[in-house]
């Protein structure tokens, strides 16, 4: 393709205007201009359709704008100047491929689709893509939906949430620690604003200052130890906490707000807190949407950590947030032991060969090892 002559001033002015309009608009470079829009931007002299055509043609030849069709009408969108220069130097094949990727915008396009749509042979496509990638016109991203497929996208674009999976994905991988952190933060915030906490002295107040600053983790692990020795019958979680506290001198009570008198934090309220709390990287915080926070809240509800009250949320009584840096060593304890009901506490309730068990069978009540174990370690 012959390199066109230098851009005329008129075109340059129009391009600058379009670019400015596009960057100022919400859609950014995705912004499309219809003929009307462009005529509106132009000075009176060039307003007629006749004058417009050569201008647009020239811009298009320079690769500064690209034409497309939307609902039957022609429309144009801008390209960055740098990209335009590169495009000028591309071969036809490369240019076609580039345009496919450009069309896919923030969704990205699979290698497979590229080949199919362009109809170019495989080797050439790969070569062209490599070149485009080297020229920093395109980039490869990972799509959560299809992590194995290579997905291409324009270099300057940020992949959409559909592709990345949302804020909770990091390079196509679920960022579990972030979720955990956010969940923890939510529990902290909701608990602080949904209960009145009060410490009631039991007898002598000598230990009342414990839990201040640095001793938090220590006190917690201390309590954990005590919890482990707690009575097995002490099954309900709420009671478990009480038992660990039994020996202390201070009793922490969670006082409920009288019904209908308190505004419990709502999802958007929680979102505000999470994004402004400085706990999460600013760029991430900006990205987090209320819907995503709502997702975390739902998970917390399923996990019995939060409960809905009216239009807001409240922590389930006894649920506490995990102080930073504290590692929960006995996960096991949370996963069952000491909890559950009559069935799951009995050896049969968690027996792996329960289906085989029967009178006179290879496994029966008499030769059951789980029972032996259970009876030996009981109470």
């Amino acid at each position, binding site marked *: 393709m012959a390199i066109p002559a230098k851009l005329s001033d008129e075109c340059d002015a129009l391009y600058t205007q379009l670019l400015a309009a596009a960057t100022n608009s919400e859609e950014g470079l995705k912004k499309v201009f219809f003929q009307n829009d462009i005529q509106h931007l132009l000075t009176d002299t060039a307003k007629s359709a006749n004058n417009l055509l050569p201008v647009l043609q020239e811009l298009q030849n320079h690769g500064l704008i690209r034409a497309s069709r939307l609902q039957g009408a022609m429309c144009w969108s801008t390209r960055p100047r740098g990209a335009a220069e590169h495009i000028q130097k591309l071969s036809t094949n490369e240019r076609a491929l580039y345009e496919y990727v450009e069309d896919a915008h923030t969704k990205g396009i699979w290698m497979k689709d590229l080949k199919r749509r362009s109809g170019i042979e495989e080797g050439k496509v790969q070569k062209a893509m490599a070149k485009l990638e080297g020229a920093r016109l395109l980039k490869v991203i990972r799509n959560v939906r299809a992590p194995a497929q290579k997905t291409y996208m324009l270099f300057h674009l940020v992949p959409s949430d559909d592709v990345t999976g949302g804020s909770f994905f990091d390079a196509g991988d679920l960022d579990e620690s972030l979720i955990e952190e956010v969940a923890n933060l939510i529990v902290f915030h909701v608990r602080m604003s949904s209960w009145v906490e009060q410490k009631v002295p039991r007898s002598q107040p000598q230990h009342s200052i414990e839990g201040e600053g640095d001793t938090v983790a220590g006190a917690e692990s201390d309590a954990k130890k005590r919890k482990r020795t707690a009575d097995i019958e002490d099954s*309900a979680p709420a009671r478990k906490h009480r038992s660990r506290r039994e020996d202390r001198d201070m009793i922490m009570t969670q006082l409920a707000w*009288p019904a209908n008198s308190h505004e419990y934090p709502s999802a958007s309220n929680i979102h505000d807190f999470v994004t402004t709390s400085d706990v999460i990287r600013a760029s991430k915080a900006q990205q987090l949407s209320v819907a995503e926070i709502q997702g975390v809240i739902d998970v917390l509800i399923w996990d019995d950590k939060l409960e809905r009250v009216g239009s807001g949320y409240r922590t389930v009584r006894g649920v506490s947030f995990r102080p930073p840096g504290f590692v929960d060593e006995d996960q096991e304890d949370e996963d069952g032991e000491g909890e559950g009901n009559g069935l799951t506490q009995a050896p049969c309730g968690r027996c792996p060969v329960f289906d085989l068990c029967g009178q006179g069978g290879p496994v029966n009540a008499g030769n059951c090892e789980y029972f032996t174990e259970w009876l030996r370690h009981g109470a």
Partner: protein
Amino acid sequence: MAQNLVELCTILIENHLGDLAAQIFTTLAEHGRLSAPTLAAHANIPLVRTYTGLATLLEEQLVLHHAAEEDAPTYYSVSWRNAYNLVRHINVVSLVTERHGEAAGQVVKNILQLGHARVGDLTDAYNLAPGSKRDSGVETGANHVPEAVMVNGAAKSQATSNQRVTSASELHSILRTLLRFGILVKVGTRTLMPIADLQEQLQEAVIVDQFPDRKVTGPKKAKEFALAVNDLKRKWRRDDAFSDNSDASSRGAIKRPGEHFNPNKRLKLNGNKPNGHMVNVDCEPSVSKLPLDLIVRVDFTRCSLGLRSQRLQKLAKRPLGSATGAVYGALLQALEDKVYSVRGESDESAKDDDAEKVLPSADLSQIAEMLDPTIDLGSSIRGVGTSKRLPNGTGTDGKRKHVIDNEFAEIGIKPEISGSEDDEPTTNGFSSYRNHAKRVKMIEAHLVLLQEHSKEFCKRARAGSTSTEWGVDFETLTDGLIQAELDTTIAARFGSTHLRVVRLLRERGKLEEKQVASFAMTRIKDIRAVLTELQSESLAEAQELPKDNQRQPSRTTYLWYFDPQRAQSLILQQTYKAMARTLQRIPFERERFRTIIEKAERTDIKGQEQEKLETHERQLLREWREIEERLLTQVSRMDEVVVILRDCSGRDVSLAT
């Protein structure tokens, strides 16, 4: 599936009544209803012995009998519910003990052991020295597992009960209370009839009475017929129920109209105090005696109602604290009087006319009456109790702020808020009207809190108004209870991720694997493992949705879902099986301790274990008792699961025979 239940019931009956009864029961269970000769043939037992066995079974209402006509052969069939109920004895006794005191618990225990009892016989048993005719009758089934008898001896429990119930009038007062609360019911002729036969008889009676042409089909007629049958059923039920008028006292005591006997009205007030009865009996010697030939039994439906209340209270206590839980318990107990069965009387009538569902309701003052006056209501809701101690209010407030800052790290709850913290005696007793009003107000605050909770534990009887009547939507809550039980089981068995997935599926319906993963915020490969595990346990299921005709797995979408009904019956069956296994373990454990048990059983040693046995032998004996106790306790704890999963909703038909 029913096999587990058969196994469990057989073990229970074997433990309770011996081999013969168990064999007869199993045969009946296997073959359905049989006449005695056929039964004898099937079971390979001589006819005479069959009759003996049937008699013992009938005494405990484990077998029902019915003869269509006067001289037609009598058919026998098993009563699953009653057979299963053998395992519930412990829970029933503890429920009664908690509500009506130790003595009442003992009485109920004895009646349970006997199956049913004549009031006169009971009186005799309590008044006469051990060894009397009736007392030996008690021995036949001293506990639901005779092993306990062997070691502890029935004599012991008998002795203690004799100590507890000191006079005939006390016994009568206890029985009256229990009858009034519906825990005991009169045994009528219809008690031992199979439900199906009863229904048949009902329908026949209605037909003869109201439909002489015997035409009961057709939309209009059928409706009329159903109504008439229900009416008659209710009438029969009323007839069978104990009432002071019809079951007149044989000893010329004062007759009181209806079901209002004042002594028991007063008893209700003190229901929670173990000594309440004593006090009452002493100050009111005019307790009217019950007719001596009245036969009573324990009504298990009623008891499962009580057990359900207990569990509901627990459910509310967990998120809202013990004070609120106690208030809720009081409300539930007040409501129990008004609900006939777990399903609620209103069901039948609601079907007839689509009127708005009427909730059973109780007045605030009734709740206040039920509530243990020592419970500190003020301290668990912010601002409710503070009006009393305004001067200190500000002080605590500042402290609280401080506390929040550095103590958020701790899991702080202390459900039991003992009254020790405020030493003003205002909440104790109803010393003045003002205090009473204040207390009622606090109760209301707790009730509003219960209503506000997402489970909506209770609501005002008339929506929108500020009436003081509170009701409970049992049907919805019972479903919640079942759901909570399933959740607990799943969480304990598999872990929290599984629970998360199950709840998610329950809430969101059928979902694809990827959707599940994104909702649960878990890696897809973890979710896959979770779903597969749940599927292999039949707790989650996948619906195939092939994209083409080939039905290739790779071209198929799988929609995962959770079927609560199925999970419920599955876990119920597993519970039966686990109970059976736990009971089966007892003989094996006993075998290990056989020598020492036999020694302790010897007539010259029994009762003097302390002196005659050596230290290590006593140690062994203790060990054995602990093991047995542990296994039995576990069984009764599993029964609590069954209460929830099977009996609470009243919708379970697996036991209808």
